[in-house]
C-alpha cells in the first residue's frame, strides 16, 4: 500500500512526515534486534516488561497519528491537529522506541556482567592474567557501564545526541559480548592452567613432605647419636670416678702379720 505524499490526498503524509516515519521504522528495527539479543543473552531467557511497555506506548503514539489522519471525527483530538499533532506524537513514539532500546541494552549489560563474573570466579586470578590479559581493560569498561545502568530511565525526554549515545552503548555492549565469547572459548585453556597449577601445588607439597620426613630422620639420627655419645661419655666418667684404684679404702692389716 503506497501512501502518496502531497496535498492531493488529504489523509496522506507530507515528504517530511514520510521521512520521519521511515526514521521511526529504521530505529524500531534496530531496537527490535537489541531487544531480541537482550532476551537471548539473559541467563533465564526472560523478557523485560518495561521494554514491552515502551513498545506499547510507541505504538500508541503512532496510532494516534494514523487515527488523526484517517478519522472522520477529529473533535476529540483537542486543540492540536495536523502537522503539529503529527510532530508531537512522532517525537514521543521515537522517544519510546529509544527507551526500549536502552532498556534492552541495560538488560544485556547486566546479563553479560553476571555471566562474565560467574565465568571468571571459577578460575584463579593468575590464570585469567595469563590467558585473558585484556580482562583488565574489560574490567574498566564493565565498571563504567555499571554506573550508567538505569540512567536513561531517569530522563523523560530524549536529547539531541541520543543516536550517538545509543551507538556508543551498542559498541560497548559489543566489546563485552566479544570478551564473553572469548571467555567461553578460553575455558579449556583456563582449566588446563588450573590443573597444571594444582599438579604443581601437589608436587610442591609432596616435596615439602619429603623434606620434612628427611629432616625428621636426620634429626632422629643426630639425636640418637648424641644420646649414644652422651651415654658413653657419662658411663666412662662414672666408671673412672668409681674405679677401685682411685678409691681410698681403709688399710686393714691381717692378724697373721701381727
Amino acid at each position, binding site marked *: 500500500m503506497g501512501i502518496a505524499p502531497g496535498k492531493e490526498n488529504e489523509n496522506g503524509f507530507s515528504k517530511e512526515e514520510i521521512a520521519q516515519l521511515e526514521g521511526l521504522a529504521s530505529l524500531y528495527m534496530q531496537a527490535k534486534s537489541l531487544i531480541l539479543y537482550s*532476551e537471548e543473552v539473559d541467563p*533465564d*531467557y*526472560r*523478557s*523485560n*516488561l*518495561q521494554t*514491552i*511497555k515502551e513498545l*506499547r*506506548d510507541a505504538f*500508541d503514539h503512532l496510532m*494516534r497519528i494514523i*487515527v*488523526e489522519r484517517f*478519522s472522520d*471525527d477529529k*473533535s*476529540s*483530538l*483537542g486543540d492540536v491537529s495536523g502537522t503539529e499533532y503529527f510532530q508531537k506524537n512522532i517525537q514521543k513514539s521515537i522517544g519510546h522506541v529509544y527507551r526500549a532500546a536502552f532498556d534492552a541494552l*541495560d538488560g544485556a549489560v*547486566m546479563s553479560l*556482567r*553476571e555471566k*562474565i*563474573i560467574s565465568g*571468571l*570466579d571459577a578460575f584463579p*586470578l593468575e590464570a*585469567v592474567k595469563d590467558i585473558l590479559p585484556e580482562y583488565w581493560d574489560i*574490567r574498566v569498561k*564493565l*565498571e563504567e557501564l*555499571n554506573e550508567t*545502568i*538505569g540512567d536513561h530511565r531517569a530522563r523523560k525526554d530524549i536529547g539531541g545526541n541520543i543516536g550517538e549515545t545509543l551507538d556508543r552503548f551498542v559498541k560497548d555492549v559489543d566489546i563485552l559480548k566479544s570478551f564473553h565469547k572469548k571467555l567461553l572459548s578460553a575455558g579449556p585453556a583456563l582449566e588446563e592452567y588450573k590443573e597444571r597449577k594444582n599438579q604443581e601445588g601437589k608436587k610442591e607439597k609432596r616435596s615439602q613432605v619429603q623434606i620434612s620426613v628427611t629432616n625428621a630422620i636426620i634429626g632422629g639420627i643426630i639425636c640418637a647419636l648424641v644420646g649414644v655419645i652422651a651415654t658413653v661419655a657419662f658411663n666412662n666418667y662414672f666408671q673412672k670416678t668409681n674405679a677401685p684404684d682411685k678409691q681410698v679404702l681403709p688399710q686393714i692389716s691381717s692378724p697373721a702379720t701381727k
Partner: protein
Amino acid sequence: MTIRVSETTRNIVCKSLDIHRLSEVIDMSYGGFSTTADVDRAKTGLYSDSNRGSVRLNTGRYYTAKEYEERINRIKNMKLPY
C-alpha cells in the same frame, strides 16, 4: 474489515472511563507500571492456560518492575575479580 462494538458495549466502556464518546480514548495514556503498581505474577499465572499471547510471558519468563529493580541492585553490587 470494519470492527464495530455494540452500542451497549460503548456505553459500558465510556461510563467506566468517564468519557462521552469512544473516540475520546485517542489521547488517553495507558497506565504505567512500577514497583508500587506492579504486575501481579500470581494473577497472570491464573490465565496462562487460556491466553493465546506470548509463550514467554505465559510461562512467567519476564521481570516484573520489582524484580527488575532487584536485579539491577544485585548485579550492580556484584564484585568483579581483582
